């Protein structure tokens, strides 16, 4: 078991490192390996270099932040998915189960509808995501007579549907020439426009969400027991659940605010990680994050390099993710639980 875990970690981090190097070397703007090496030497050791300023801008301001954003979004979605799948004791749960994506989408669509700037659209998405989950939690936890997990999920589905209807209404009313395409592209998700500023805005929130998950990593395993059993072991189930929901929501909302809706990662990656090393949360969380980061980086690198126009990452995550997942599903010896 230990050896298997170590192997999985070694392979995943190795793949991530390799992918990151590749991602820096690939792109639509022609930058040679030599130029890249010179730039790295200059930034690390202050060595003299001779490359075009526009190439430097591309690496430091455009390609670099985008790579970091792919890593951040991939890791955040995978971590949130891992936490939720553990908490809800269900492998089919994804980070948007409590409406964070639908809320973020409504926030962003409102921003586009009222012709706001890119920054306001992002803040709208972030706030919308938090507000939606807050609402779902308030509704779900006020239903006394039912299983709390079930009430939460039901509240999430119902509010998600309502938010979806509001988005549909805004799309219908939007100016079909200018706003509708912008809305459509936001909902498709993309990292094409990520700037260093976006990253600086999203990273603190994603980290703030990660810290509680990391601190609670041992207790998370106890959430897979029934509430009564967990309580008998002295776990404050309700408070733990709030902490997990807050953490996962913060991470997902921060990610979605800069990337738009990117599906599959939060559902598929935790599942894949679990098939590789089993459900023990403290080991699962880091591996999920590494795999999520690597997967989204690979997808986004393809999205930005294969054609002059961008390919929506949501399309690629499904195209690449589905066969990969099926392969894992068929070959993995380890089942869920």
């Amino acid at each position, binding site marked *: 078991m230990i050896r298997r875990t170590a192997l999985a970690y070694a392979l995943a981090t190795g793949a991530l490192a390799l992918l990151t190097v590749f991602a820096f070397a690939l*792109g*639509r*703007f*022609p930058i040679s390996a030599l130029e890249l090496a010179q730039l790295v030497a200059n930034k690390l050791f202050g060595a003299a270099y001779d490359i075009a*300023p*526009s190439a430097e*801008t*591309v690496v430091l*301001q*455009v*390609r670099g932040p*985008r790579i970091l954003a792919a890593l951040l979004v991939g890791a955040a979605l995978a971590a949130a998915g891992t936490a939720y799948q553990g908490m809800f004791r269900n492998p089919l749960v994804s980070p948007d189960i409590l409406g964070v994506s639908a809320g973020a989408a409504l926030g962003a669509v409102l921003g*586009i509808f009222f*012709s*706001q*700037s*890119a920054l306001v*659209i992002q803040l709208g998405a972030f706030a919308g995501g938090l507000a939606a989950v807050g609402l779902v939690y308030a509704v779900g936890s006020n239903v006394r007579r039912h299983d709390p997990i079930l009430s939460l999920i039901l509240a999430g589905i119902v509010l998600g549907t309502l938010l979806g209807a509001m988005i549909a209404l805004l*799309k*219908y009313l*939007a100016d*079909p*020439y*200018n706003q*509708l*395409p*912008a809305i459509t*592209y936001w909902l498709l998700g*993309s990292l*094409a*426009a990520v*700037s260093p500023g976006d990253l600086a805005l999203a990273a603190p929130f994603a980290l703030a969400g990660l810290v509680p998950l990391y601190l609670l990593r041992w207790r998370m395993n106890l959430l897979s027991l029934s509430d009564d059993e967990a309580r008998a072991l002295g776990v404050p189930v309700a408070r733990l659940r709030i902490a997990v929901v807050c953490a996962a929501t913060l991470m997902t909302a921060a990610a979605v605010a800069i990337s738009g809706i990117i599906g599959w990662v939060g559902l598929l990656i935790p599942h894949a990680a679990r098939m590789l090393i089993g459900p023990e949360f403290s080991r699962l969380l880091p591996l999920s994050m590494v795999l999520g980061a690597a997967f989204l980086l690979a997808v986004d690198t393809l999205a*930005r390099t294969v*054609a*002059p*126009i*961008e390919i*929506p990452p949501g399309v690629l995550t499904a195209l690449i993710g589905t066969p990969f997942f099926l392969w894992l599903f068929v070959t993995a010896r380890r089942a869920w639980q």
Partner: protein
Amino acid sequence: MTRAVLAALLLAAAPALAQREMLDAAGRYVVVPAKVERVYAAGPPASILVYAINPDKLLGWTRALRADEAAFFPDKYARLPELGRLTGRGNTANVEVLLKARPDLVVDVGATAAVFASLADRVQHQTGVPYLLLDGRFEAIPDTLRALGHALGDAAAAERLAEYCERALREVAARVAQVPPEKRPRAYYGRGPQGLQTALGGSINAQVMEFLGARNVAGAARGGLAVVSLEQVLAWDPEVIFTNDPNFYEHVWRDARWGALAAVRAKRVHLAPHLPFGWFDFPPGPNRIIGLYWAGKILYPELFPEDLRAKTAEFYKLFHHRAPSAAQLDQLLGEPGVLPR
């Protein structure tokens, strides 16, 4: 082809009987009443053209005009009701609203593909109101104006507008033809709040650029709108950037990443005027003709010596039936390409 259609139209008109049979741009025979007083426009380009020919016959706009748009029209037309759109993206019309407006004729101007022809047939069958589908392509505007003028019984007014458009298109094409291919600027059209939606080759959004002979950096790929990465824009390094988004236009000067582009450093980013109708791509109506002069002056200043204010005033008087005030001209033309307004 369009000439043949026109000839057919004129022939059909010769005996001034109670009704006329017209061949529309989709090849449909439509029986048009002798007197057309009330016209329902199925989409924005149709409403713009009907309004330009005879504003008193337009029953309403597809969407109620916003205050900033309404300021460009005489009050009684600015207040025309919102009737929704039947056709194209985001159709919002209700057939009962159409019937309640009691139109003599429904007009759509745009693509004439089978899907629109079948929509026209269906609505015509359902409502009993003749439905004319006319060609909305840029180059077809003069002939479409004439056909519409004929249907409305306002051939003289339509002819004046058609001649204006024809002359403008011919004049601009002749000027552009003098420019050798290597002298034609490489241009990028950045849409959306991030400026990263662009118009691919052959798309309706790139028509003004293409008509002006600008080399669309995204033109190698054919299609409609698409998202590109900033890195790709940097790799293209366009000489001129057009945009339709005020937020992007404000932002572009302050973003170090866009600042790596020669076009941004040379202040060659230009926000297309959009009131009351966009000058660059949407809605795809005659509004793009004045956009040709605006963008032409940006691309080839020495070939477009005319005063854009006078040109704009003339165009607006002709097509919107109200000459813009000096303040409105300032609002429209500002100082294109010079730092944030």
